[in-house]
């Protein structure tokens, strides 16, 4: 159906899409996980309530999250150039993806940690655990399943956003869909990329749920 060049392009698109999605999820967590922990710990009724730190974190989170991704992408062009040296292509897209994902991840992490049973935290405290020990040895361990589910959801969302960045030359499957489907009316290529995106999404979702279920010791 397609010639070799198109197939090659699609394969590269898959690679670029996975690259953008996974790398931005990773760096999103590098920023978002500590950010989320700080939000959870400093909130009212948290492990170490601190109104000032919480308010600042809360504010930053809300600001970034209220800017639509495409606008963020454009707003961040100077910053992206500063970080990776250019403003187009898949590596460049990772920068706005990470900035967009981090506050979202922070909220997901904050909510996951909220689910940890207060009684278990109390028990740890009664054993003489410090706050850091409670965070790393109790909260993150007990919230493991919920955190993993958060990773799955985030990865799925970043997959979608990475495709969206294709409209401004971001690379990957989204880029191909836009270039061929929108500008050249090659509907068949567009359909293939969309199907591929759906398949990748399904794989991420199922793999994520599978891993989360496998590591959960609360039932069975």
């Amino acid at each position, binding site marked *: 159906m397609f010639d070799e060049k198109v197939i090659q392009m699609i394969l590269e698109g898959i690679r670029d899409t996975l690259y953008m999605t996974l790398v931005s999820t990773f760096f999103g967590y590098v920023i978002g996980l500590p950010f989320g922990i700080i939000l959870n710990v400093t909130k009212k009724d948290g492990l170490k309530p601190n109104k000032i730190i919480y308010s600042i974190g809360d504010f930053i989170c809300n600001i970034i999250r209220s800017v639509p991704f495409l606008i963020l992408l454009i707003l961040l062009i100077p910053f992206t150039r500063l970080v990776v040296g250019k403003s187009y292509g898949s590596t460049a897209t990772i920068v706005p993806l990470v900035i967009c994902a981090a506050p979202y991840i922070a909220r997901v992490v904050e909510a996951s940690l909220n689910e940890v049973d207060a009684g278990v935290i109390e028990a740890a405290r009664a054993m003489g655990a410090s706050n850091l*020990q409670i965070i790393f*040895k109790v909260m993150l361990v007990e919230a493991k399943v919920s955190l993993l589910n958060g990773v799955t959801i985030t990865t799925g969302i970043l997959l979608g956003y990475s495709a969206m960045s294709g409209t401004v030359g971001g690379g990957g499957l989204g880029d191909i869909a836009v270039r061929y489907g929108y500008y050249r009316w090659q509907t068949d290529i567009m359909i293939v990329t969309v199907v591929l995106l759906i398949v990748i999404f399904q794989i991420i979702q199922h793999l994520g749920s599978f891993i989360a279920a496998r590591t959960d010791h609360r039932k069975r």
Partner: protein
Amino acid sequence: MSEIEIRELTKKFNVKEHTVTALDHINLSIEKGDIFGIIGMSGAGKSTLVRSINFLETPSEGQVLIDGVDLAGLSEKELRKKRSEIGMIFQGFNLLEQKNVLDNICFPLEIAGVKKKAARERARELLKTVNLEEKEKAYPSQLSGGQKQRVAIARALASDPKILLCDEATSALDPQTTESILQLLKDINEKLNITIVIITHQMSVVTRICKKVAIIENGILVEEGVVDEVFESPKSDAAKELILEKKTQYLPIDNLKEDRNIRIVFQDNSSYEPLVANLILNFNKPVNILKADAKNVGGKARGEMILGLPAGEELQDEMIDWIRQRGLIVTEVKEDV
């Protein structure tokens, strides 16, 4: 010096505009090796009191001294060290759901920085103590309530505490399981000489293993003493209510009534005398047994009985006198038992 010394302990919570006084100038001394019961109705302040003993709750006023050391004077680090010397178990067990039994028991040791291998050895020893050797690989979700509490006890014992605090540790368990957990606590107390503080709303728990008891009501310590004595002749209304384990009003014995119900408490010397049979034979009148209950109080058999006396004020008085002459304590119970 008592092991646990609570002085003028007051705890106030600010909820919105008003203040809740959860504890009101509590004074309490708990000696080394005691099994000390703290009993009260829901909301009386029991949990707040026990959480003050390891400073999970900082007092608004007053002091808590452990082995003569005022907890308020400790640095954050010293306080954590002190807490690790005080074990605690809870109504909801509070085990780490994502860790297996062995790792749960190792947890306090992990926190204290004990090497993994040494911690596991100690944990296995403790599993033997609580009779759960075959469950070391199980996760909490695969255990029954009683088994979970055994794991929690093993975990609390891991760091060799001198004191064990139990907040409603048996309230989520059925009577048989409660019995076995209480027996375990008693063994631990005897073998390891650990001071145990038991918070409960059930008098049966107190009479089963405690030597001493304190009764709190609305944040105030209303009665305190040796379990035997409090059980035989409760003075406060709260104690009376808790001993009958339901709402009951006691009246002075000379309050005249047509049909009278009385509560008799058996002591060591009288337990074996067929009291009711002799009473009936002596007066040749029927007596109604409304409740009869034998309990093990501090290792001695203790019984209580509630009798409905036949009509006739004079006869009733004679019967009460007759019972009293046999060294029994009689109080009148007003209510349908």
